[in-house]
């Protein structure tokens, strides 16, 4: 070994330390960037004295994959919790105060009070106003469900658009990585960007990735449809602007294949797109059909039988576009809740006579016009509690009273909310836990970098000292020669 070799090595060491310092300062600069993966400058010896710095990016493929799954699960669940909250508030009001169930209860109370003093016209007006409230809550509930559906539809369209642009970005970054890999260039920043894009994609659809040669990545959805392979696959969705009760929303197509449906309040699906489709097509539709059944229950309860042959049964206080017939039991008449209205015969705002509520709306059961005729009213108050056939959740028919059924509708929604909310808690915990572990493995710890900096400082000083010493030795040697 000669002095010049020693000088070379010391020089090399200075160079390496400088490069290590530059990596370190980059790490420090990105300490708060969650998408930044910590770089490590690895020294390796080629032959004695010559050391090369190789920059590596810390990753954990398995954890990253787990984090993507957790992310899409949480994104779907939190969407469902948030939107169910809103649906419940829109349809049932704060503390269910404006729910059809509560309002029917108040209407029954008003009828009861009226039946105790049928001669009192004010009480008749009060009952009619309560009936109007019931109708309004059904109409408004139905309208807000449909606007909820159209809003979901709009958000789906927006999400699909965003997903497509993310995939286009993904192509750019992926291509860059492939090119860099082929030419042996460093593309670590592109890797960071690509991982960040994958995280955002997984918020929309549940995905898994397949690595190929030259660091190329292929994305497939959880149900096996290819989302990206060299080129992005088109995700298409035909939005529907106006929703009626019978409108069926379009499905999301990934590369021509429909996105799998998710079910349950603790949703089986991942990604906000599946969650929004589920909200639009199952929760909102089910809610609507329950309102429709409540509306049918009201029309049927207040229907009247002609005292004269052929004893037709016709719609009474509550009526609908198909009047005078009464909607058939056992099937859901879609959109009935938005079509139900107060019979004009008793509606004072349409020139009707409120006292028909006492005597019978479609037929006169009090032909003598007795002021305290209470039988019709008492009969109607009672029949609100009598069992009738309802189509319940899932298309099953069951015998229940209108009061029970309408309260059951609240139970159904709140049960879904409760399940969804506790599932969201679990899923968010999983999401935070995996992110935390991933972050611990891949993100920067400032203190560690500081410690490393001390080490580098020492090493730099030592190398410099070494150069100074070699210089002195050379000086000594030269002075001997002189």
């Amino acid at each position: 070994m000669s002095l010049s070799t020693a000088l070379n090595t010391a020089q090399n060491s200075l160079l390496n330390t400088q490069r290590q310092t530059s990596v370190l300062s980059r790490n420090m600069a990105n300490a708060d960037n969650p998408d930044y993966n910590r770089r490590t400058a690895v020294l390796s010896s080629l032959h004695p004295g010559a050391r090369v710095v190789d920059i590596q990016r810390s990753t954990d493929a398995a954890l990253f994959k787990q984090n993507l799954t957790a992310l899409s699960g949480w994104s779907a669940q939190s969407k469902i919790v948030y939107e169910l909250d809103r649906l419940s508030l829109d349809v049932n009001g704060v503390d269910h105060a404006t729910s059809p169930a509560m309002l029917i209860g108040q209407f029954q109370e008003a009828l009861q009070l009226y039946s105790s003093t049928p001669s009192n016209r004010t009480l008749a007006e009060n009952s009619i106003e309560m009936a109007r409230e019931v109708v309004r809550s059904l109409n408004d509930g139905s309208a807000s469900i449909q606007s909820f559906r159209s809003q979901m539809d709009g958000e789906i369209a927006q999400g699909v658009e965003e997903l497509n642009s993310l995939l286009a970005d993904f192509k750019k970054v992926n291509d860059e990585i492939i090119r860099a890999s082929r030419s042996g260039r460093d593309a670590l920043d592109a890797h960071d960007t690509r991982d960040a894009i994958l995280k955002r994609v997984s918020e929309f659809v549940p995905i898994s990735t397949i690595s190929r040669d030259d660091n190329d990545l292929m994305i497939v959805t959880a149900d096996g449809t290819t989302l990206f392979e060299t080129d992005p696959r088109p995700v298409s969705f035909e939005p529907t602007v106006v929703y009626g009760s019978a409108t069926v929303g379009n499905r999301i197509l990934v590369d021509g294949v429909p996105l799998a449906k998710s079910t349950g309040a603790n949703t089986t699906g991942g990604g906000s797109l599946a969650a929004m489709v589920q909200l639009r097509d199952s929760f909102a539709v089910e809610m609507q059909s329950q309102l429709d059944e409540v509306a049918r229950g009201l029309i049927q309860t207040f229907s009247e039988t002609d005292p004269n042959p052929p004893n037709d049964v016709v719609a009474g206080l509550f009526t609908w576009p198909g009047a005078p017939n009464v909607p058939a039991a056992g099937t859901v008449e879609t959109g009935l809740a938005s079509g139900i209205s107060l019979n004009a015969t008793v509606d004072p705002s349409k020139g009707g006579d409120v006292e028909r509520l006492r005597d019978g709306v479609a037929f006169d059961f009090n032909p003598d016009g007795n002021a305290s005729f209470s039988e019709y009213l008492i009969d109607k108050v009672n029949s609100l509690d009598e069992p009738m056939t309802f189509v319940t959740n899932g298309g099953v028919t069951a015998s229940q009273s209108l009061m029970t059924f309408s309260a059951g509708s609240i139970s159904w929604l709140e049960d879904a909310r409760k399940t969804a909310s506790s599932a969201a808690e679990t899923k968010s915990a999983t999401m935070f836990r995996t992110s935390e572990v991933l972050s611990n493995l891949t993100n920067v710890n400032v203190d560690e970098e500081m410690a490393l900096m001390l080490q580098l400082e020492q090493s730099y000083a030592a190398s410099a000292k070494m150069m100074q010493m070699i210089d002195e030795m050379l000086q000594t040697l030269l002075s001997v020669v002189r």
Partner: protein
Amino acid sequence: MKVSFVSTQAITQAMRYQMARMQTDLVSANKEAVTFRVADRGLALGARTGMSVSFHRDIDRLKGLTDSNELAASRLASTQVILNQMKDDADSLLSAFTTALSSASDPNIAKDQAEVFIASMTSSLNAHLNGEHLFAGINTDVKPLDDFLDPASTSATEFNELFEGHFGFYPDDTDVSDITAAEMEDFLDNVVEPYFMGTGWTDHWSSATDQQIVSRITLTETAETSVSANIDPFRKLAMAAATISVLVGRDLQSTTKSALLEKAISDLGAGISGIANQTGYTGITEQRIDRANERMSMQVDIISKSLIDIEGVDESEAAVKVNGLIAQIELSYTLTSRMQQMSLLKFL
């Protein structure tokens, strides 16, 4: 080489996440501590929310029923007062008739008493409460009893027609003195009685309906909560008083008068006992309403208790929860600031 097992990012994130959760919890715990009810009924009860909704509804309904029962109860109480009043009036009329029959006192006294009785009976049966005629059955917006004392009234003219139809002359005719006791008895038993007890009463005297006001007094029970002017005791009292007031003042044979008074006394007796019975029936209904109210208030108590069981929160627990959360959040703030201090930078 990576030596640490925690990243700076993870430390701050975890802190932030915990803080956000605790603050959300604090909001709902605060609401619970103030209202003593769960903050979000739906989230707390899930599928049982419907139960809580129907409990709330049941309580409202039972209270509503209790309120409307008050109306029926006040109607029955007024009815009761009037019935007792009429019974007293009928008692004094009975003694007046008995005196008239036993002594040779002026028959006009009996006639006057009968007229006074008819006047008080008319006003009693036409009494109204809260805009409803109490004795009108369900035809409560029409005065039930015709004013017999008004000579032009239907009931008065029809009575004269009835007399004329049987005897061939009107009561103010001088021929009345020819009527024998037997003829008068025949008239009273076979013409006047069927008239009053049959359609004559409903056609000319009363516009009340036989049907009485039916009220729902509990969730499942209904009761008749009024008395109709068409019940037999009223007809009997009116018949006795009307015959006496029209006929006794006339120039009749004394035996005929006695026959009249005897018939009137027996009708009055039947009427008085009938009213006493009616008072009893009404009392029973009043008692039923009382009991129904009592039962319903018990039901309200029970339901309220169950409601508290399912959606109430323990007051002290809620308060402790709020305090605990506040302490925890404060601790978390302290920790955050301590951790902010904890950096190698400070020591280099």
